[in-house]
């Protein structure tokens, strides 16, 4: 084993170690503190965990690309809400009325198209104006949210379609529909980032934008494509979730960006870009969902949940840093 391999291994595995720790903790604590007779690690509960990870998880995959690319997207929560509105509202449009359930795929496509377009708009602004993505998407987070409210005022937008609900609630090979989407997206994005030229260029641009420009990579369109991907995935997440719930509040998806970024960072993606792994992001998503689920399993109250989630985030960051320190002789900067 080369020197450093152990710490690399530990680092890569840190998130999975953390997940195991959570599982052990909640299983034991659950024995004493939970009302439920079912164990925390009950198979059904774990399947639910995967399903419940889907809304954040699907977006997190897109965020990983964007962050590896050296950008960030704070507007995903708003895109999620807009796409949801389009999804539910379009099914009630008179032109699709005659189609019955045939309107469903059209509604899906419309929602996905809108999400992709909003992502494209972010990407285009980042590309053409050269304004930092953090600022562009911070603005869009407000602006897109404004659009959400403009669409239907403060009213929720609802359309409960039981066919859709049944589809969303279905289980195939034991896994829920949402889980399938999450797994498919994870696999697809993993493939994109590791096997394709686009993916490798994303790493290169995030690592050293100037070098990429000098090497003739078309950085602008490349970034725009990534913003379109995350827009698409935010919409897909909405499609998956709202197919089941059938109603969207104008403030739905608020703070999603924070949860998503948290998951991605827990998974070890560098905030400055250039490094990150899809599989670890998946781990990050599970870790967060597990934490939420576990805390409610043992009956922690609101203030404790807030406190614990905040501190754990910091603790994991700290641990990650400790694992990364090479030794005492490291340069002190």
């Amino acid at each position: 084993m080369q020197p450093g391999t152990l710490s690399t291994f530990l680092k890569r595995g840190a998130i999975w170690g953390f997940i195991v720790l959570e599982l052990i903790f909640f299983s034991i604590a659950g024995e004493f503190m939970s009302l439920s007779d079912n164990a925390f690690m009950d198979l059904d509960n774990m399947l639910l965990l995967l399903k419940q990870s889907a809304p954040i998880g699907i977006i997190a995959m897109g965020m990983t690309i964007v962050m590896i690319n050296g950008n960030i997207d704070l507007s995903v929560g708003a895109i999620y809400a807009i796409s949801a509105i389009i999804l539910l509202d379009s099914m009630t449009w008179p032109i699709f009325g005659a189609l019955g359930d045939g309107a469903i795929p059209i509604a899906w496509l419309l929602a996905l198209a809108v999400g992709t377009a909003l992502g494209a708009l972010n990407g285009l602004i980042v590309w053409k104006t050269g304004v930092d993505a953090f600022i562009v998407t911070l603005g869009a987070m407000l602006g897109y949210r404004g659009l959400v409210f403009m669409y239907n005022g403060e009213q929720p937008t609802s359309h409960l379609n039981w066919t859709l609900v049944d589809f969303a609630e279905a289980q195939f090979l034991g896994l829920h529909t949402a889980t399938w989407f999450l797994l498919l997206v994870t696999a697809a994005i993993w493939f994109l980032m590791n096997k394709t030229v686009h993916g490798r260029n994303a790493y290169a641009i995030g690592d050293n934008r100037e070098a990429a420009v000098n090497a003739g990579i078309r950085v602008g369109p490349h970034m725009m494509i990534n913003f379109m991907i995350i827009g698409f995935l935010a919409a897909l997440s909405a499609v998956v979730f709202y197919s089941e719930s059938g109603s969207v509040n104008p403030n739905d998806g608020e703070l999603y960006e924070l949860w998503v970024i948290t998951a991605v960072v827990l998974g070890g993606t560098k905030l400055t870009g250039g490094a990150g792994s899809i599989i670890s992001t998946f781990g990050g998503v599970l870790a967060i969902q597990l934490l939420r689920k576990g805390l409610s399993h043992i009956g922690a109250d609101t203030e404790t949940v807030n406190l614990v989630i905040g501190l754990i985030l910091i603790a994991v960051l700290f641990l990650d840093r400790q694992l990364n320190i090479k030794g005492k002789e490291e340069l002190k900067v």
Partner: protein
Amino acid sequence: MTDQQPALRLEGIVKTFPGVRALDNVSFAVMPGEVHALMGENGAGKSTSMKVLGGIYQPDEGTIYVGEKPTVMHSPLDAKAKGIVFIHQELSLAEELSVAENIYLGELPKKRFGLVDWDTLYARTDKILEKLKVSFNAKTRVGDLSIANQQMVEIARALTVDAKAVFFDEPTASLTDAEKVVLFEVIADLQKQGVGIVYISHRMEEIFKITDRISVLRDGQYRGTLNTRETNEEEVTQLMIGRKLDLSRSALTHEVGDVALEVRGLSCGDLYRDVDFEVRRGEVLGFYGLVGAGRTEIAETLFGLRDPSAGKILMDGQEVRIHSPADAIARGISLVPEDRKGQGLVLGMNCRDNMTLPQVDDLKAGPFVAEGAEVSIFDQYRDKLDIRTPGWKQTVGNLSGGNQQKIVIGKWLSMHPSVLIVDEPTRGIDVGSKSEIHNLLRELASQGYAVIVISSEMPEVLHVADRIVAMFNGRVMRTFTSEEVTEDNLIQAISGLSGDGQAA
């Protein structure tokens, strides 16, 4: 070669930046199969010419011809498509990616569906690496390579396309002699294939060794082209700086005083072990060794940036513990670091503020920074070091590479240190300024400073140092006095074949 048409020609190029006329009517032509040197002082406009050609900047006036055709270079991509390749002065690599991915950055071989063709990629890379005789392989992460090896990766890029013209901007600034030899072979190869080569360097010996013609810029203006075989260093220098240079070494006109700094048995993990040396007031101590020998790490330890794992540091006979640069500065140690962009300068700050940064706490009028005092310090060192800038308000990032380096040197000289450590002080510095800096270092020593010079250029250490510490692989192999040292025994020592028989 006279009746051939040029591979690439510039005509009447003008490029201005706010307050600076960086290129003022520059014209020259590169023939296929020639090595064409571009020379000039720091800030003369060499890198800017290159960036104009590469589509990174658009010229305000003038025309670029590729072959006979007037051409607009829209972007680096465009330039590349037209067969023009650039090896930039500043390393331009993605550290997290592999060597192969960096070499083929922007043009990874593809299979169907945009998939990376890894097999082809590695095969091609291996072929290039073989040519370059390097020790790393295609899959190594670039961030794990030494600076010199990273430079080799950069150079490897020139070999990936069928280039019409290749530009090298100071490629040897951080290469060892062995690697230079390889580089020159590569250049000769390209030359044979009829590629036009533009070679930017401040090192005369290289220029005269490998180039066919020399074009000279001064203050953004074209000063003429010379045939290398028909000219000499003196003429080129004169054209570059408008006067003759005195290259003689100022002899020691003073007594060497007592020991200012002493290091005993100093070790730092695997980086270096059991290092002993001392430096006296009035003396220039050189550190010479191959890249990776651990010299920089010793300097960083002395400057409080690394904690030693064993050994002690003594100043004026007293053992001292230095935990931070602030400690080091308080004890009168200054360090001119080797990486000016990363470690030396705050690029977005102006020249004055950069120069006075380490002493900003001491330059006070009441609770405020005494800006008048700062300006006068800046003016003093601008004159002393001949820094070319429109004024102290200029953002340092807009200065040419060499002038940036001078700001860093000025920054630490103005601290009046008792021990001055300079790490690769003349990397990227033009001949005129280089000899000025050498003289300055000698002069400082004669004023009673203890000076440590770390350099990878043998002529430089031989020229400025009174004694030379030869390092190999983290150990001191031998310490030479200037009487003992010869090129041969120095090379032996730094290759691990110690002059006095200690094998490594």
